[in-house]
C-alpha cells in the first residue's frame, strides 16, 4: 500500500496540474521538456492505476477472508455433528484437513457468487490498466533511447503472422491438386484425375516442396 499516499496526493493536485499544463505546456515543449513531461504524466497515471488496483485487491481479499471465516464456522458445525456420532479428531493434521475441507466449500460458494465474480472482474480490469501504465512508461523510455517499443515489435510480429498465413494459403492452393492426384492414384483413376486438373504454372511448380515445414525422417 506504499503508493497510496503518493497517488492520493497526485489526485488532489490534478486540477492544478491540468491548468499549469494549459498555461505553460506549449512553452515547456518549445524548450525541449516534452519527453520529461510525458514521463511525469505516465508516472502519475501509473500511481493512479496502482491505487485502483490496490483497492480492487483489498476488496477481493476481503471476500477471501470472509469465506475463510465462514469455513471456520463450518468446521465448528462439522465438529458439533461429529461429537454425537462418536467421531473425534485425534491429530493436528486431521484437524487441518477437516478445516481445509470446510474452508474449500465456503471458498467455492463465495467465489462463485455474483459479488465475488464482480470483484474478480474489477481486479482484472485494474490489473490490466496498471500494466498498461507500466508499458506506457517503458515505451516512453524506449523511444527516448531509440529502442523499438513493445507496440512496434508487436506490429512487426503481426505483419509476419499475416505473411505466414498468406504463404500457407498459397502453399495449400498449390498442394491441393497434388493431393487430388495422389487420391486418384489410390483409387486407380490417375489418368482421369490428371486430365481433369489444370496445368500448374511454371513459376509455382518448385513450391510443391513445402518450404515452411521441415520433415524429419523417422529413425
Amino acid at each position, binding site marked *: 500500500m506504499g503508493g497510496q499516499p503518493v497517488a492520493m496526493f497526485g489526485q488532489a493536485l490534478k486540477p492544478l496540474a491540468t491548468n499549469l499544463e494549459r498555461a505553460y505546456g506549449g512553452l515547456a515543449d518549445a524548450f525541449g521538456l516534452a519527453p520529461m513531461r510525458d514521463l511525469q504524466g505516465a508516472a502519475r497515471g501509473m500511481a493512479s492505476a496502482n491505487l485502483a488496483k490496490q483497492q480492487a485487491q483489498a476488496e477481493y481479499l476481503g471476500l477471501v477472508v470472509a469465506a475463510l471465516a465462514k469455513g471456520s464456522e463450518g468446521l465448528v458445525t462439522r*465438529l458439533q455433528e461429529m461429537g454425537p456420532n462418536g467421531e473425534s479428531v*485425534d491429530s*493436528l493434521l486431521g484437524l487441518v484437513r477437516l478445516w481445509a475441507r470446510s474452508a474449500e466449500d465456503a471458498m467455492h460458494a463465495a467465489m462463485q457468487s455474483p459479488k465475488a465474480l464482480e470483484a474478480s472482474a474489477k481486479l482484472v*480490469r485494474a490489473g490490466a490498466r496498471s500494466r498498461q501504465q507500466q508499458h506506457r512508461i517503458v515505451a516512453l523510455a524506449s523511444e527516448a533511447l531509440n529502442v523499438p517499443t513493445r507496440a512496434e515489435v508487436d506490429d512487426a510480429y503481426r505483419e509476419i*503472422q499475416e505473411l505466414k*498465413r498468406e504463404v500457407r494459403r498459397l502453399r495449400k492452393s498449390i498442394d491441393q491438386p497434388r*493431393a487430388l492426384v495422389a487420391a486418384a492414384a489410390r483409387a486407380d483413376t490417375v489418368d482421369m484425375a490428371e486430365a481433369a486438373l489444370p496445368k500448374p504454372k511454371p513459376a509455382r511448380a518448385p513450391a510443391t516442396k513445402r518450404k515452411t515445414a521441415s520433415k*524429419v525422417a523417422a529413425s
Partner: protein
Amino acid sequence: MNQALKDKPAAGLPIRITPESLMRELQQVGEKITRGSQRLANYTEEQLAIATSPKDEVWRQDMVRLYHYRPTVAKPARVPVLLAYALVGRYQMIDLEPDRSFVRKLLAEGLDVYVVDWGVPTRAQRWLTIDDYVSGYLDDCVDFIRERHDVDSINLLGVCQGGVFATCYAALFPEKLKNLVLTVTPLDFHGDQGHEETGAGYMNLWARSLTPDDIDLMVDTMGTAPGALVGFSFLMMAPMGNLTKYTTELVDILDDEAKMLGFLHMERWIADRPGHPGEVMRQWFKDLYQANKLVRSELVLGGRKVELDRIRMPVLNVYATGDVIVPTSCSRGMEGKFGTEDYSELSVPGGHIGTFVGGKAQKILAPSIAQWLRERT
C-alpha cells in the same frame, strides 16, 4: 496430566489433541520431513523424467512438433490416430509415467499413435488464432500423416481444448478424418447454466462475468498470456485443495516412494505451463465461453463457418464424471448436434486430468477407445 481431563474434548468439541499427542505428532512429522528431504535430494534427473515413451520427431513448423510413437505391436492398426492436446498444458500429460501413460496404453492396444506438441508460444506468437492452429498446424500434421501412411483419412483424438480444435477441424476438413474422438472437451460452453454446482465450472462463470471489453483489455495488455498466469488461474479453482496438496497431503506421502515420484512427475508437468497466444484467448473467451458459438455452429474460423452438421464421421465423446474444469453438462449430450448418425458417449470415473492418469479411468479409457476405433476402421 489428569486422565479424565486428557480425554475431555476441547470446549465441548470432539478434539482429542493433548499437548503430549501434539508433541508426538510434531516429532513424527519432523522425522518424516527429514526423511523426505533426503529422498528429494537423491532423486536423479532420470527418475524425474516424464513423457519417456520412445518416439521420433517426424515434422516441425515454428514451435510445433509432430511425434510418432514407436509401435509396441508387430502390426499396428492401418489407420493411424493423431492426438491433439490443449494449449493450456504440455502434451506430456498423456505420457506422464510408464505405468500412467495414455499413449502407452493406446500403443499396447495396437494403435499407431502420433501426437502434436504445440510447443511453447512466445510473444512472437501472440497473433496466432484458433484458425492458425486448426487450418494451419493441425491440417499440416494430418496431411503429413495421410501422405506418410498413404491413406485418405486418419483418426483424430482431441483432449479438452485440443478437442475443440479437433471438432473445428472435423467440421472444416471432414474428408480427411475417418473417426473423431473427443475427450473431456467443452462443446456447449453454456451447458452448465441451470446445472450450477459448487466447486465446478468456475472458469465458465468467471469468463461470463467479464465483459467483451474486459477480454480485449486483458489480451491487448498481455499479448501472450504468461504460463504462470494460466497456471495460477487453475490453482484458484481449488485454492484450499491446492494449499493442502503442498502441505498436509505432501507430508502424508513423503515416505511412499511411488506416490512421491508420482507427485513430482505431476508437478513437473504442472510447472511446465506454456504461455497462451492472446488472439486464441480472445476467441476462446469471447466466441466460446461468452457467445457459445461452437455448439450453435456460429463460430467462424478463417472466414469459414464451423458447421457441426458437416461432421459425418463416427464420433466418440468421452467425459469424466468428476470433471470440475469442464463440467459434464458442457461436454455430454451432444447427440444430434453433429451430422453423424454414429455418435457414442463414454463416461470415465475421475476428474479432468484423472481421466488420463487415474487408476480406474486408465483401465477403461484406452481399451474402450481402441475397441471403438477397431469396430470402425
